[in-house]
């Protein structure tokens, strides 16, 4: 019988970074990094790590939203299309309609939120399975994104916008990467310590139990899809800053990357277990892997095979760990 005497009310360090289910992947990540450090001259450098941070921004932010969705036992296939929709709304409002950037950004995020709310309501009110509701939204949002400019891209954002993705403050921190870090931190604190965050685990564990415990399951579910969509919209805005242009074909198949990152990070697709720390590891595995394969100049066909193998190994490693500990 253990009753810990020394337990404080303040967020605890170990709590925050708890790796539930993600130690396997963490080891995988470290092995990957070690291998790449030996196999290439260019991997192990400060500069390259900054590059990787840049490259994972979009996926990282989307994966946080996807973590919430998967935690409540849902799934969202529409994130890539919503990213494109939000980008096109941004470009349309700022460049075509000539509105100030603040309005354009708000509009882009609102359009994403709306798309998320529709998915959420379809799931809660019309009992459409999340897979289907978001699959439909994936098609709809992509169609709308294309219809804004009849398929063409938009360029001509104000100069400062692109600079946010380029200038490295204090020698390392671009605004886009900073946004990602803030999203990570807020999501981590929210999931660990906020009542609403904990309710996501309850809903994912068993929605009926959550309902009986007095949690507003429907509202929470809709909100989760809204947040996931808004984060995708935010990722779209960062991507627009980075590319200094928007095109309706952005983000195709990003949903699969995001889901893969979340699951590699130990969040269970059946809901109720996992967290953002694992997801960050998952995102890093995918980011480092892509970066490393390019540094190694591996052909794209072989890359596909290797990425598949690594994903499986990272997830299966967790099983081996459990077997060992039995």
């Amino acid at each position, binding site marked *: *019988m*253990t*009753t*810990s005497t020394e*337990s*404080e*009310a303040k*967020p*605890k360090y170990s*709590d925050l970074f708890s790796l539930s289910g993600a130690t396997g992947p963490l080891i995988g990540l470290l092995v990957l990094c070690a291998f790449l450090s030996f196999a290439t001259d260019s991997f192990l450098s400060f500069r390259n790590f900054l590059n990787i941070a840049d490259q994972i921004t979009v996926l990282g932010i989307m994966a946080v939203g996807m973590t919430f969705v998967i935690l409540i036992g849902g799934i969202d296939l529409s994130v890539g299309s919503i990213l494109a929709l939000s980008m096109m709304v941004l470009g349309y409002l700022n460049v075509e309609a000539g509105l100030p950037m603040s309005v354009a950004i708000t509009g882009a995020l609102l359009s994403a939120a709306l798309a998320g709310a529709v998915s959420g309501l379809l799931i809660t009110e019309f009992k459409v399975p999340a897979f289907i509701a978001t699959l439909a939204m994936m098609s709809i949002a992509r169609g709308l994104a294309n219809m804004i400019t009849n398929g063409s891209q938009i360029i001509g954002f104000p100069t400062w916008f692109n600079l946010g993705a380029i200038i490295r403050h204090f020698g390392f921190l671009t605004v886009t990467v900073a946004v990602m870090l803030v999203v990570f931190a807020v999501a981590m*604190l929210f999931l660990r*310590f*906020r*009542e609403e965050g*904990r*309710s996501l*685990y*309850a809903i994912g*564990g*068993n929605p*009926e*139990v*959550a*309902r*009986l*415990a*007095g*949690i*507003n399951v429907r509202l929470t579910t809709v909100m989760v899809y809204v947040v996931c969509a808004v984060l995708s919209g935010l990722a779209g805005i960062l991507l627009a800053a980075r590319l200094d242009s928007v095109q309706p074909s952005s983000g195709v198949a990003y949903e699969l990357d995001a889901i893969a990152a979340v699951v590699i990070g130990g969040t*269970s697709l059946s809901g*109720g*277990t996992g967290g953002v720390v694992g997801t960050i590891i998952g995102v890093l595995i995918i980011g480092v892997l892509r970066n490393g394969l390019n540094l190694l100049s591996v052909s794209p066909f072989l890359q596909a095979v290797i990425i598949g193998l690594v994903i499986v190994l990272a997830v299966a490693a967790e099983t081996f760990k459990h077997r060992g500990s039995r």
Partner: protein
Amino acid sequence: MTAEESTPLLSLRNVRKSFGPIEVLHGIDLDIKAGEVVALLGENGAGKSTVSNIISGTILPSSGEMKWQGAVFAPASPREAIDAGVGMIHQELLLLPHLSIAENLFVGRYPKKAGVVDRKTMEQRAHAGLQRLGLDISPRRLVQGLSTANQQLIEIAKALTLNARLLILDEPTAALGGDETIKLFEQIERLKQDGVGIIYISHRLEEIKQIADRIVVMRDGSKVQEFENADVPVRTIVEAMVGRSLERMFPPIPSPQDRTVLEVRDLSSGLGSFTGINFDVARGEILGIAGLVGAGRTELARAIVGVDPVSKGQVLLDGKDISPRKPRDAIRNGIVLVPEDRKQQGLVLPHSIAENFAYANMNQVARKGWVTRKRARAFADGGILKFGVKGQSHQNADELSGGNQQKVVIAKWLARNPRVVVLDEPTRGIDVGARSSIYDIIVGLAREGVSVIVISSDLEEVLGVSNRVMVMAQGKLSGILNRGEANDVSVMELATM
């Protein structure tokens, strides 16, 4: 008595409920006062859980009205009922396996400090709640992997920490042993002193006298009788419940034959929950297994039929080593298990009764591997009739009351005509009438030469149906008593060794 005191905490008037076209509650009137324990009794499917679910906002009534301290009360969701002060523990265990015990206790109402969940307070309060029920587990432990009894205790702890004005306990003791039940009653007494009103549902009628102030009996969706005093003979209650008198609970037990059928040799669990178990069961014998909660009985049963891994030892049938590695090895040899948890292990809830029968009896339902719906239904109808299940073969299992589900699980396994039957808590949640018919079935099986193992936390039950009683304590076999020598005292002595 002042006017305020006489206003009931909760009153129901003419509450009705239909599922689809079928009305299952036909106008219920019920009053609960502060500080009293009302026992709600009735056969399986009488509508007890349905009434409770309406009060707790889990489901909506079709018509009728409820008043809470005199004001109209129509909770549209559990949240509204909770906010009003109604707490309920449900008949089915409803816990979140991936969360800690503490979180399970406080889900939906976490203690907070500066906007964040105050884990320290939460764990302290959880710890206190568990201690009160004599549960010595860390509140940080995950619920996953806890035994059924412990999960039930956690459910109870959850209800006790609710600070409710009205508490509904739907069969809280179904999976508990004697000690735990006593602890629970102490807590109920304490709540009564604090003026909490309690609705207590149970099929263990002996308990009622100890705890209830008043008894309400339901039958087929209507209230049939109220006893203003709990001090009525069990026989009278039973008559009110089943609408006839029940001669006896336990039928005479036949003597076993000489031939040993099942032998368990030095069996140890692959999961570490029991070690070195030796016993045998003869043809036509009923072996009871008793023990305290967590003694390892369920694990032993699961190991015998190949559900869980074994680290060492053998299971012999007719002297032949058949040590099953998977359930189908056991089934092929005519050994079947009626599991403890009917929802998780017994039934595919969203499927029809007919399908559930078919899954366990494909060899009989299928002809050359072909199955038709008609044959599956006809097969299930046989079992339904034989066991008096209230339900039809095309109904989904989740539309049945808990007790009737249990009957379906037993019936589907017995339909295989097994040689050895292992029943783990066979009468959990089963009403008295049905319980005595299940005892009849058990004894009938023994007469036909089937070897039966009955695991139960209900001591009376083990003593009542067994030729011999095997007692386990902390994963070890502590003794086997013959029918003559087994009684409350001798069994408890061995169980606490």
